[in-house]
């Protein structure tokens, strides 16, 4: 008889559709993965842990000083892959290395931004690349204790990462006197359990301390007051995963992979109305049209209507605008949106923007931590307004009210969730106001759209 576990296993993702395809362009993080080669031996066979050997001088060379590692990361132009795009080398240089006492390193794998599923595939199919990146970061900043905070919904990924940690400890890459050096670094995995807000770095720290994940006021920033009140550096999973390649090949080579100020490759999670949704690792600066082509193009028989280019919090861009963009921080920002986490949500010409915004607004209302009044109350207002417009009960004044609520949330909250809820509303009104107007005039939503 088939057991329940066997039944469930049939539906587990294999990575074939999302990761092990030949439609990446010059991949570094996803290169040569097949789902069964995640373990330490396979990673070493791909050149893994060579960068760590190099900085510790265990490859026959002189090794790298902390300053040299940070300088190399600065030179690479690597920018934070979690959403904000902050220069990684600069962030590392903020860590007060001489601070006496414990300092912490944290990896943010709380990947819950609607549209994003790239870190899941890194941690599941290439976990050691994150571990090696974290060890190198810890070395550069003189840190001896680290945690990887993993999204609670991807529990199998958390278990995979724990297995990889065990391997790394057994091989002497983690622990005391790493590879015979005087450098010590302990690394552990911590899981969330369903709270989008914990992707915000200070909420993540609160959660890691065993509390509700409510963001902290900044300043003080984590670099001075982080986990357990001690200096802490937090980077995204993909950011750490980029580091071993940079050390092995040099900062200049990484920068050359992308475009100026936008070094390296970036993984884009393409979802929605495309033929082949999945993760695509491509050099920053690749045209959007090329990414769309890699993802199989818009669903057969349909035209591109709009794209949310950087996760649900980033402003929507109409087809005519996004088709002129290249996929990098600067080009998307210039077009009026954000590269964010690299979650590209594609919508075709059958889609109703009111319906789309309604689900986004529900998400932010549900996930507001409730700490700041403008966000706690405002996200509820946004959802109720969009909901009644979509149900055909909208009033003419609702458009101005939506805009007013959104602008009264923005900039008035401790963390960015308030802005993240308001920005999609304002962008939808900017580009697709006529769809909202049409629904307010015609009480029957079915008559206004075909979606």
């Amino acid at each position, binding site marked *: *008889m*088939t*057991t*329940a576990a*066997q*039944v469930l296993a*049939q*539906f*587990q*993702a294999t990575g074939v*559709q*999302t990761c092990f395809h030949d439609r990446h362009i010059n991949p570094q993080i996803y290169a040569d993965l097949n789902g069964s080669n995640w373990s330490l031996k396979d990673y070493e066979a791909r050149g893994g842990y060579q960068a760590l050997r190099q900085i510790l001088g265990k490859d026959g060379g002189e090794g790298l000083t902390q300053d040299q590692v940070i300088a190399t990361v600065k030179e690479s132009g690597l920018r934070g892959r979690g959403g904000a795009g902050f220069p990684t080398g600069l962030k590392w240089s903020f860590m007060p290395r001489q601070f006496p006492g*414990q300092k912490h390193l944290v990896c943010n794998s709380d*990947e*819950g*931004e*609607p*549209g*994003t*599923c790239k*870190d*899941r595939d890194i941690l599941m199919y290439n976990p050691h690349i994150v571990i090696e990146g974290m060890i190198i970061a810890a070395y550069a900043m003189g840190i001896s204790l680290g945690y990887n905070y993993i999204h*609670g*919904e*991807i*529990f*199998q990924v958390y278990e995979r990462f724990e297995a990889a940690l065990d391997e790394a400890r057994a091989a002497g890459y983690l622990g005391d006197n790493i590879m015979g050096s005087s450098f010590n670094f302990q690394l*552990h*995995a*911590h*899981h*969330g*359990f*369903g*709270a*989008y807000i914990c992707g915000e770095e200070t909420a993540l720290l609160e*959660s*890691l*301390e*065993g*509390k509700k994940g409510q963001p902290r006021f900044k300043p003080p920033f984590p670099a001075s007051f982080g986990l*357990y009140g001690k200096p802490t550096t937090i980077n995204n999973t993909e950011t750490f995963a980029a580091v071993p390649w940079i050390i092995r090949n040099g900062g200049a080579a990484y920068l050359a992979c992308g475009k100026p100020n936008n070094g390296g490759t970036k993984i884009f999670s*393409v*979802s*929605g*109305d495309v033929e082949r*949704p*999945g993760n695509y690792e491509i050099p920053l600066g690749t045209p959007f049209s090329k990414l769309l082509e890699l993802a199989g193009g818009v669903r057969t028989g349909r035209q591109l209507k709009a794209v949310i280019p950087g996760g*649900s919090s980033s402003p929507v861009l109409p087809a005519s605008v996004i088709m002129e963009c290249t996929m990098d921080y600067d080009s998307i920002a210039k077009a009026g949106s954000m590269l964010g986490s690299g*979650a590209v*949500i*594609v*919508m075709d010409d059958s*889609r109703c923007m009111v319906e*789309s915004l309604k*689900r*986004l607004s529900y*998400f932010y209302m*549900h*996930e507001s931590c409730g700490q700041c009044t403008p966000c706690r109350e405002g996200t509820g207002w946004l959802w109720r307004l969009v909901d009644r417009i979509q149900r055909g009960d909208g009033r003419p004044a609702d458009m101005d009210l939506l805009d007013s609520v959104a602008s009264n949330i923005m900039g008035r909250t401790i963390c960015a969730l308030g802005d993240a809820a308001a920005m999609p509303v304002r962008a939808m009104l900017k580009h697709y106001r006529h769809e909202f107007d049409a629904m307010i005039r015609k009480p029957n939503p079915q008559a206004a759209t075909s979606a």
Partner: protein
Amino acid sequence: MISEATKARFAREVAKYPAEQKQSAVMACLAIVQQEQGHVSEASEAGIAEYLGMPQIAVHEVTTFYNMYNQQPVGKYKLAVCTNLPCQLRGGYEALHHLEKKLGIHMGETTADGMFTLQQCECLGACADAPAMLVSDRHMCSFMDNDKLDQLVDGLRAAEGKQ
């Protein structure tokens, strides 16, 4: 009462954190209790509070803040279907409605035989696998079209001898 076997699992989690920061293990301990008992009861919260040396209300704050902790008993299998925008664009609501019909319940409810609880959930982080669904917190199921949903429900019923 928390069994010795469960305490051994707790100890593995507590060991990850500095000795004076045992509270950091509270999320993992709650998840372990939920896996073993199906939900987090007040008695479990009290037991965890005692084990970790923290106020019981601080444990309860964590249980109530995070979406995945079950504050009430649920069915043997908790089916959480993602309907966020990326899943919505690829049949997330169809999956949810199909399960409602198949199980004869509405979202938020549990089947009369106690086998299934059906929920709508927020982003699972499996957007390219849409429609995506999480079964009992620990099993992600990908590309769940109606045929696969039927196979899953029928398969679990058969495995439990409730065909």
